């Protein structure tokens, strides 16, 4: 934490991290082999590795990854768009904002995952219901962040462009939106996990494809190795998407003194 983050220490941290993961896996494997853990319920790293190889080499898991990724990304996109547009509307219409504030907070308080079964009734077993659930999870996160961003715009910047003769549309485009971008990105970052969660839980409740469905199906068949395979794939997906988003953020916020 306090040491200077040189390339050397970065490498050390990476090695230590790898070592920790390997140690946990080794202990798991050992406990399973010694029958201290029952492999039937807990599986074991070697079995998971074999299953993972199987799942990828047979190509069986690929379409499910694609479906889940599609749902999560579409949900992230629609949820973000809806959230930003709502925030712009609330920023422009002050009365509407005051009327809607408690209603939005109440809707936010609903456990949305619990509504999954209803969305599947409405939108069917296909990807639409999962996209809706994922988008809904993202929507509130982006809405609250974007709105907070709009409220926090430096008024002296707004005055400066107003004195240059900017119209209210130009003020929105040239000051309010750009200065709220860091806030929106924070919302989208949090929304990424929520979107993946929404997609997987939606699949879990009722679907015929996707990683959530695969977890549910494998669980029902007591194929614990396959359950772990799916979980590891989900972890890797999340890490990958986070890296992509981090790169996008770095590009968009290169004007800031410190980024992440």
């Amino acid at each position, binding site marked *: 934490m306090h040491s200077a983050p040189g390339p050397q220490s970065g490498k050390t941290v990476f090695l230590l991290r790898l070592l920790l993961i390997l140690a946990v896996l080794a202990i798991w494997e050992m406990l399973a082999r010694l029958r201290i853990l029952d492999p039937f319920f807990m599986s074991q790293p070697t079995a998971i590795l074999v299953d993972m190889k199987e799942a990828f080499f047979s190509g069986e898991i690929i379409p499910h990854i694609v479906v889940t990724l599609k749902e999560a990304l579409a949900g992230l996109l629609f949820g973000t768009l809806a959230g930003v547009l709502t925030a712009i509307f609330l920023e422009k219409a002050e009365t509407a904002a005051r009327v809607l504030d408690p209603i939005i907070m109440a809707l936010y308080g609903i456990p949305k995952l619990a509504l999954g079964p209803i969305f599947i009734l409405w939108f069917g077993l296909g990807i639409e219901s999962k996209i809706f659930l994922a988008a809904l999870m993202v929507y509130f996160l982006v809405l609250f962040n974007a709105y907070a961003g709009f409220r926090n715009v430096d008024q002296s910047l707004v005055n*400066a462009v107003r004195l240059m003769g900017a119209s209210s549309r130009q003020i929105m485009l040239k000051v309010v939106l750009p200065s709220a*971008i860091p806030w929106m990105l924070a919302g989208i970052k949090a929304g990424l996990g929520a979107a993946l969660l929404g997609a997987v839980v939606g699949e879990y409740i009722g679907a015929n494809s996707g990683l959530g469905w695969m977890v549910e199906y494998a669980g029902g068949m007591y194929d614990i190795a396959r359950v772990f395979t799916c979980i590891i794939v989900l972890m890797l997906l999340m890490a990958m998407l986070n890296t992509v988003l981090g790169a996008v953020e770095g590009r968009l916020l290169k004007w800031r003194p410190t980024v992440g």
Partner: protein
Amino acid sequence: MSGGMEMHNSVVEKAFQGITRNPGEAALIEGVKLSVRGISHVYASPSGAATVSLQSVDLNIRDQEFVAIVGPSGCGKSTLLNIMSGLIRPSAGGVFLDGDRLSGVTQRIGYMSQADTLMPWRNTLENVELSLEIRGMPKAERRERARHLIHKAGLSGFEKSYPHELSGGMKKRVVIIRILAADSEVLFMDEPFGALDVFTKEMLQDEILKVWQETKKTIVFVTHDLAEAITLSDRVVLLTARPSTVKNEYDIPIPRPRSALETRFQPEFVALQKLIWNDLREEVVKTKGGRDA
């Protein structure tokens, strides 16, 4: 809240009896660029009491004149400038540019405030272009103009730098370039160098002197720094403590071109500073003593 508003209105009306004069649509006075007629401003303080910040302020500013406005702190200098720029509506009176009554902000006036108003997500070039962009100037043309002005100001090499990469003095220079790019007829500056160190301040004062020398724009400069006011201006306008009105005006006959450093050692400078400071001190004492009145 609504009770406060009603009180505000009645107190404001009462406060107005006697101070409101009908400025009328004034005829254009020969050589006058900007005319402030009977400006009064009353606002409700948080407690609901009406506070008169400006009372019948009259001011005529000639074309190409450099006027500095000074006064005790809290006297409404900035409010006056905000009214003159159209950001705040006065309770009474009007502002006339070339004889035309101003209603709201106008691109004919360029404004520089004390706050850091560079857009942090725009680099130097993009910041300088901003007002031209708002006006709808084609990209190639505004880029060319911005580049030229940045080069002329000696900031070549910093076109792609973001504000956080620039020093406080450089940021102010970029703001000056931005205001010049807009090429407004009149420039307003509201304590633009308030928060800077002495050396940076002196360098920027020289920059402003140079800008005036080269463009001969009409400039109104609000400051609490009397030395700065004398150094830069052709005329210093002294406002009284609240409710503020013009207490006195002083011509500054120091020859131009001036330098911020040299001017300070001129005998006229010292005499003027002493003269104005005596008048200013009366008002400062009034502010201190009359805080609760």
